[in-house]
């Protein structure tokens, strides 16, 4: 666009045409916003015409996970309970990207309130994996991952509470980054689990992910948990891994249910990094097994409180036939929330109840501290930890919907990063059985630069990059 070979409007029109052509099968988008997108693109056209683009994201079409509030655009968190809700404000991440010239194409499908690992818990419809339409795209940010994988968006935003960016990125063969907790403002993110949620990008290259991070990250006075740490995602991006120590944890490389094809690709990737000059180090993450249990106490507990505001009184759906206040609450919530959301609200409510709090919530918080300590100790011996992102490649639609525990195990390699608040990135490292395999790089808090640098080094060393899934 800088070279005037194309314009933001042309790019947007091609994008809309691709969506038209492919989304009938993939179902990545819940709703498109072509009118406002065309206006944004036209404004970007002018800036390029004047030779004054706002930066590398100016005029780039972007998809937004349906949990991020976009001013005036219906935002539902993938739930019927918010059907028809138009937020009166932009999430901070959206506002920053808007100011950088990004063109918002539409809202992408996700598991309801980001609760799930396959996007099958959407209150609307499931999304299909562009690499195999009978397969799930992962979740909860499955729509965003699938949109980027199918070439229906250059960039997309997702949120990651236990792996909801990295796991779908892996299953769809794209790059997905979950930043350090506190790195990107959560203001305007419809909360699932407040102490775990982070917003991050989906892209088809590590460099693009770094560019988006550079724009989104940084202290926001509207989010008291956002940090004032300096933001530099780019200057060390091409520095390679020469001299870096890369940790491999047995608890991750030998995790239960790890498919051989996934393990093979990840082992090859680790060797590639070694070949590029990294030193391999074995590290231990002994509390990994307890992390999953702790996660499924803390996250539902916070969710049970965060979702209390959906009471049928103020916004979204409300049962018109309810006769009393309590009936309004009960009927609206029973009809508006899907089964997985109701399950987690019940789990979380129970975990916080008087008499059970110490045994569940408090114990889970202690485990969380231990998991964080595991990582802190591991990072004394290494600069980054590399593993598979997901134990499996994309599974078939319906394969795990009847078994919540099997679904929860999808996050076993990613949720430790959330419990410890670490940055992590997933990037493609080949295929197994024709389906993408993802490589996860975890780094110490505030060291997104290290995760990005290792990921970029792998891209360069392996020549493996994300590509658009063939139609």
């Amino acid at each position, binding site marked *: 666009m800088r070279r005037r070979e194309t314009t933001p409007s042309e790019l947007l029109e091609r994008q809309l045409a691709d969506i038209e052509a492919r989304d009938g099968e993939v179902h990545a988008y819940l709703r498109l916003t072509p009118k406002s997108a065309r206006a944004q693109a036209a404004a970007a056209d002018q800036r390029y015409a004047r030779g004054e683009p706002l930066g590398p994201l100016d005029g780039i079409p972007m998809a937004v996970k349906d949990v991020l509030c976009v001013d005036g655009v219906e935002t539902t968190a993938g739930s019927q309970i918010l059907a028809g809700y138009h937020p009166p*404000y932009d999430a901070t991440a959206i506002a920053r990207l808007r100011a950088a010239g990004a063109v918002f194409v539409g809202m992408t499908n996700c598991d309801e309130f980001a609760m799930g690992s396959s996007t099958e818990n959407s209150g609307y419809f499931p999304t299909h994996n562009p690499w195999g339409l009978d397969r799930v795209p992962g979740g909860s940010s499955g729509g965003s991952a699938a949109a980027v994988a199918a070439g229906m968006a250059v960039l997309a935003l997702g949120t990651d509470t236990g792996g909801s960016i990295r796991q779908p990125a892996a299953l769809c063969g794209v790059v997905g980054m979950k930043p350090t907790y506190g790195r990107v403002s959560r203001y*305007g993110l419809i909360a699932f689990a407040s102490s775990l949620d982070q917003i991050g990008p989906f892209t088809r290259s590590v460099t693009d992910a770094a560019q988006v991070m550079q724009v989104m990250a940084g202290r926001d006075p*509207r989010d*008291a948990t956002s940090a004032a740490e300096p933001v530099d995602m780019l200057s060390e991006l091409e520095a390679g891994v020469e001299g870096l120590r890369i940790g491999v944890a047995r608890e991750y490389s030998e995790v239960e249910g790890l498919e051989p094809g996934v393990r093979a690709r990840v082992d090859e990737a680790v060797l590639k990094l070694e070949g590029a000059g990294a030193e391999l180090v074995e590290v231990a993450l002994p509390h990994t097994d307890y992390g999953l249990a702790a996660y499924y106490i803390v996250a539902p507990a916070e969710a049970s409180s965060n979702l*209390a*505001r959906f009471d049928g009184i103020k916004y979204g759906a409300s049962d018109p036939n309810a006769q009393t206040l309590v009936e309004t609450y009960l009927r609206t919530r029973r009809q508006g929330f899907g089964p997985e959301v109701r399950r987690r609200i019940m789990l979380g409510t129970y975990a916080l109840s008087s008499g059970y709090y110490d045994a569940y919530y408090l114990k889970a918080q202690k485990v969380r501290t231990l998991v964080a300590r595991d990582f802190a100790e591991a990072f004394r011996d290494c600069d980054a930890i590399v593993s598979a992102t997901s134990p499996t490649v994309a599974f078939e639609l319906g394969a795990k919907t009847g078994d919540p525990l099997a679904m929860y195990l999808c996050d076993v390699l990613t949720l430790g990063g959330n419990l410890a608040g670490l940055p992590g990135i997933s990037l493609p490292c080949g295929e197994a059985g024709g389906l993408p395999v993802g490589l996860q790089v975890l780094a110490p808090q505030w060291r997104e630069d290290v995760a990005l640098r290792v990921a970029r080094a792998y891209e360069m060393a392996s020549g493996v990059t994300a590509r658009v899934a063939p139609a």
Partner: protein
Amino acid sequence: MIADSWEAVIGMEVHVQLSTASKMFCSCSTDYLGAPPNSHVCPVCLGMPGVLPVANRTAVEKVLKTALALNCSIPDKSKFDRKNYFYPDLPKGYQISQYDLPLSRNGWLDVEHGRVRITRAHLEEDTGSLKHAGDALHAAQESLVDLNRSGMPLMEIVSEPDIHSAEEARDYAMALRQLLRYVGASEADMEKGQLRVEPNISVRRRGDEKLGVKTELKNLNSFRALYRGVEYEIRRQVEALEKGNEIVQETRGWSEAEQRTFSQRSKEYAQDYRYFPEPDLPPIVIDPGWLDRLRGELPELPAPRRQRLVREHGLSEQDARELTAERTTADYFEAVVAAGAEAKPAANWVIQESPRTAPEHLAALIRMVSAGTINRDQARDVMAAGGDPEQIVRERGLAQISDESELGAIVDRVLADNPRAVADYRAGKQQAIQALVGKVIGASDRRANAQVARRLLEERLNP
């Protein structure tokens, strides 16, 4: 009214709306009284999906200052918690409050009847309010939600059950109000809902160790309502127990119209609020330097100030109490004294006249009255005129006539014009001289020095 064999045991829960420019967790204005419903709101205090709270530092400081004034211990670290429950005036479905690490604990407030221990003072957000169309909640056709009040900073101060009568309950509330106004925490106007006092009342046979079943009293919108409500509730409980009935643990409201309490909500089944740490707000770290600064900003508090006024200025305990009722009054009094007025007449002026004139002007007036330049009536007129008193006295030619020859001429004329009063006095009616003094003052255009006039009258009438 309450038989001597019974003892009332009362603990107080007081909610105080803090006086801040913006709400507790958003930047909405707090100046909503009289504004249209839902006009002082934003996505944050409306509890819209995706919003986050950011704590108001001024509100935290106001609680800490109050806590210091209440002799509380303050921890190094405090945090907010979520109190979860459903109600239409609570837009998030939880209230951000403080559970196990409040901003302060274990203090006391000395009131006239003795010391009331303070259990804790913590910070939370206020709820919105409901307007029911119709007379009664259960008969209402519609209930409307107004969220202007939602997210207002609210301090909760809980006392130990150290109060034993309606009078003590009122005294405690008044002393607390005075303290809150001194430290600038709140305007604490009960009628505006800025000070909400909720006594927890039980009675027991005198000498019993075990506490009786308590009721919590709400809707007390004035100190008078507080007094009457507590008095009523004690009597109701004693009468019920004497008849052999049981007290039900419940929340009761005070009906101003009927002057009685009524059952509002049974508390037999304690609600489970599922408190847990608010993940959206980092803990509050209270470092000693911050606390020192706040301590330094505290004004002299009512009790020590009262004692000092007695000690330094020789005032009566009663005068000192009246002068220290409000910090602004005491400040004003001391400014008048600092400007050169004698303390005792300054106290009288401040207490009796509620002057609004500049302290140095009042001091000048008091000096002129003491020096006999003008009399008290004139001084009042000068004060009402406003401005520099010396200049006004000069311009109006008000200076009091103390000159004996000038005043003597007026006295002679008054004596000549009032033979009846003169005769009365000589016949032994001593008070008749008062009427004559009044005539002299009148005849002098209110400028006569009354004391000199009286002496001159007496000299002439008793040769």
